[in-house]
């Protein structure tokens, strides 16, 4: 039996983007969710999906998140057709030791965006 080992890419938002995440859109200020998604997250997700790997996102060590940043970053992956909800469920995992509730929140944003996408398609 051929067993293919999956590569896991690790992404720390604090180290790979900034410690002060901002709001939703670029036009609202610096370090927005849109900026993070377009410049950092989406290219990595695209590579991981193409290579059949996994993505581990570390949410710790920022100074705190606004909900719109996280929604735009992760829900926005679905709205901009970078990935589908099932694809994100397959490749993504999170670490958030400092604010553990953030993980459920991010999954909720992903699932809401996927529900809307499915609704619009049907």
């Amino acid at each position, binding site marked *: 039996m051929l067993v293919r080992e999956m590569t896991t890419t690790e992404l720390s938002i604090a180290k790979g983007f900034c410690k002060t995440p*901002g709001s939703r859109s670029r036009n609202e200020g*610096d370090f927005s969710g849109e900026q993070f998604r377009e410049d950092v997250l989406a290219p990595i997700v695209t590579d991981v999906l193409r290579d059949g790997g996994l993505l581990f996102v570390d949410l710790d060590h920022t100074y705190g998140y606004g909900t719109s940043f996280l929604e735009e970053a992760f829900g926005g992956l679905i709205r901009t057709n970078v990935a589908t909800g099932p694809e994100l469920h397959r490749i993504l995992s999170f670490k958030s030791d400092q604010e553990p509730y953030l993980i459920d929140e991010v999954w909720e944003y992903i699932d809401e965006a996927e529900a809307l996408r499915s609704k619009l398609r049907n």
Partner: protein
Amino acid sequence: MLLVACAAKFGGKRLVFRGTMPRSKQARKQLLKSGFFDDPNVGKVKEGYSNRDNLLVTHGKTSVEAAMTADLMKRAAESVWGTNAYSPGVQSIFVELMHNTNNHASPLAKGEKDWWISVTLDRENRRAKFVFADLGIGVVKSLNRKQQGSKWFDIKTKAYTVFQTNNPAYYLKLILDRTLHQTVTDKQYRGKGLPTIKTILDRNGITNLLIVTNNVRADVSNDRYISMGCSLEGTLVSWELNASNTCLYER
């Protein structure tokens, strides 16, 4: 801080902002310490009126300035808990409020209304008090103006059907505890914006949360929501950090 915001409005219209000092000794002292007279919009004041060693003020911004508020938050947290302490709850609140002002404070366009922040550090008692304000449309009026297509459109009618009241104070309470959204959309809702701030309070991230908007005064910490006889055209949110709240330390 609201006085400074008003002074800026006057200044923007090239009007001179004049006034007398408050009669109350305590209010007068607070005003002198607040840094109000240091503001360029206030104009000439007598020397010695600029004692503000315990207050940080910023104002006149419309965008979301997360790096700047993180700096304020860290300075406040370090005054409460010591070196390297920080409060992600306070930073989240700042971002939510700046986002709300940017997105919802003007009925015409995004990014039209300024927001204002003051942070008072009480090192002796290990407390920090935060005030955030804008002179926008206010939460209640903003909600009532939502256009067709918004999940909040015609909220008054929808909510009246369920709750049999149009009391804005009660609606603000329902917004904060997410009941209004859940009732209107029939969906579970973790909440963005104002509900997030209440959640941070419930998680002991902050204390003494107070919201004044339009004719509603919400002492959220004590679950007291009242309709006032007067109205603030805008939104004012204040809260405190003290040693009993939760904090994190930078590595």
